[in-house]
């Protein structure tokens, strides 16, 4: 992976895209976004679960993490771009074993499916996490892509992320014909994604570790989706940090949300408190403890130099989140839920009776303007 940023201007080329983890939040959002790109000719999504978003032209294939099957799909559909958006970075979302299975074994399988003689894959985008840097006392205030963490990882999620990224870097070294882009995303904050941080910041009083006020940096969920799009349609091999402008003190974020800080967690032995805290519906996963003490800042300039523009600063992401918190009691339960029905999706895509809406947005047929105005 080269150090300097090279953005190779290329004429818009038709791309055939495979998204792994289609049913995850990021996979679904990205597929939805890529459907509106004219140069993206085909979108195939694979996952072990059913999709959670309504998609127009994305083809979904339910498949377990078996590289043999994924490889057959990649070759049969002549996929040239693979976006791996499966990584689990928050340990409260699933069990430790499942997270490991998905993050480490899953990544190996996807990479194996893209490798090999005659593979049509030319571009591989991996959504990684700023967890590769950790959060420790001796850290620099801003991690750049060239820096490594100051302590070996101890929490399971961080170990997984480090291992998964290492296998991607190894793949990039061996597969000379594939441009590999790794996006190390900061913690996400926004209206839609439920993360440990979002849960903590939703509490009426935000618990903090006494005597610590960590510097934190977030990125808005829309910016992560745009960052993945940017890496899909542009040729930008290398490792990039994805984080919004601005590193905020936790107390500052709490102030922006119009809440009060509650510095009650003890500076030492916070791990012992996790059981009583869970009873109070406060979950502080192990990978978050370092963040609550030392915080983490990452340098986002390299991705900006590749032509990417962020829509939100960390402060604006926090404000967007606070707007969501105010609306939440009103919107609860009203949000539309979508259930994937394979038969229906097949009918919509395959049946000659189903006519897709024209690209200019007008409905086909004569049903329009029934009064002939």
């Amino acid at each position, binding site marked *: 992976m080269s150090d300097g940023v090279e953005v190779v201007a290329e004429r818009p080329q038709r791309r055939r895209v495979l998204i792994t983890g289609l049913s995850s939040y990021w996979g679904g959002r990205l597929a939805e976004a890529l459907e509106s790109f004219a140069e993206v000719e085909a979108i195939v999504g694979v996952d072990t679960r059913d999709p959670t978003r309504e998609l127009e032209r994305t083809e979904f294939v339910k498949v377990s993490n078996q590289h043999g099957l994924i490889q057959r799909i990649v070759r049969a559909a002549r996929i040239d771009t693979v976006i791996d958006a499966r990584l689990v970075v928050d340990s409260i979302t699933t069990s430790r074993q499942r997270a490991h299975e998905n993050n480490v074994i899953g990544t190996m399988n996807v990479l194996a499916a893209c490798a090999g003689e005659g593979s049509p894959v030319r571009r591989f985008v991996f959504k990684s996490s700023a967890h590769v840097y950790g959060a420790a006392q001796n850290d620099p205030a801003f991690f750049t892509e060239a820096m490594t963490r100051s302590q070996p990882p101890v929490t399971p999620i961080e170990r997984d992320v480090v291992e998964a990224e290492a296998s991607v870097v190894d793949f990039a070294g061996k597969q000379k014909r594939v441009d590999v882009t790794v996006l190390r995303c900061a913690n996400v904050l926004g209206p839609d994604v439920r993360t440990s941080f979002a849960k903590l910041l939703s509490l009426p009083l935000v618990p903090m570790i006494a005597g610590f006020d960590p510097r934190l940096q977030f990125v808005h969920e829309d910016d992560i989706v745009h960052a993945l799009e940017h890496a899909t349609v542009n040729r930008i091999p290398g490792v990039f940090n994805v984080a919004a402008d601005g590193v905020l003190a936790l107390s500052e974020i709490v102030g922006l949300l119009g809440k009060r800080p509650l510095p009650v967690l003890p*500076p030492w032995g916070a791990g012992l408190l996790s059981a009583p805290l869970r009873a109070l519906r406060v979950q502080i996963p192990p990978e978050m403890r370092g963040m609550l003490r030392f915080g983490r800042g990452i340098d986002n300039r390299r991705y900006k130099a590749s032509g990417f523009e962020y829509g939100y600063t960390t*402060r604006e992401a926090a404000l967007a989140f606070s707007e969501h918190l105010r609306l939440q009691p009103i919107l609860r339960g009203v949000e539309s839920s979508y259930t994937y029905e394979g038969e229906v999706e097949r009918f919509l895509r395959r049946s000659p009776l189903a006519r897709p809406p024209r690209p200019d947005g007008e409905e086909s047929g004569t049903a329009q303007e029934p009064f002939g105005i």
Partner: protein
Amino acid sequence: MRELLPAIEPDRRIDDWGRSERVEGVFDATLVEFFYRYWFRCEVEGVENVPADGGALLVSNHAGALPPDAAMIGKAIRDEHSHPRPLYMTVEHFFKGYPGFSALLPKIGCVPAHPANVHRLLYDEGQLVLVFPEGRKGTEKLVKDRYRVQRFGRGGFVEAAMRAEAKLVPVCVVGAEESAPIVARSRLLERVTGLLYFPITPTFPWLGPAGMLGYLPAKFRIRFLEPIDTTRMGDEPAEDKALVQSVAQEVRARIQENLHEMVSRRKSVWLG
């Protein structure tokens, strides 16, 4: 990539390093003002040697149980300079892990002394940074060793200035060494409290944590020396270890020489 630095958001009162205008303002108007003007009666020479813009690395001698020198140097630049500028003070990583210090120190302009932090401040942001190359060797030394400038580490500060193409400004502080004299140190209490070092001073630990602020009213003199330009030392001077060492030695010698001269002219420790 300087042009890609985050834009300043006018609604924020804390910068990306965690520095808080509000907290710093409160300290500046109360404690620091009191010590600077009335207690230490600081006298400043050569403040014009601090560049009015661009990155510059200030290098000073260091002493005192809870060293008051950094705050006084910062205050001198704020109050006496024709273009007052904020000063970022480098501190040990240790403080980031110690409750209380961890939350407070960044708010008043302290930054952990990581080479990457110094580089970003000097090169990318063009700020003023203060380092104490003596580090703990300076603050730990007992009152009998006053004004003996200790070894200057491995010259990392010179390398940092060279890489960042920043000027080096040596600073001499007289008075700090007598204001918080360390009579002895306690290894046992060091271990019990988990502190970097546990000084015994006229007021600490006898008056509790506040005893750390029980400074004796020594007269302070701060002298800023001629800046050293690191940009005219050839290509990639930071790679030349011999050059780095000789520049570090030169800075140390200049500080020691000026300290001797300042101390020899002083009639009284307390009245100056």
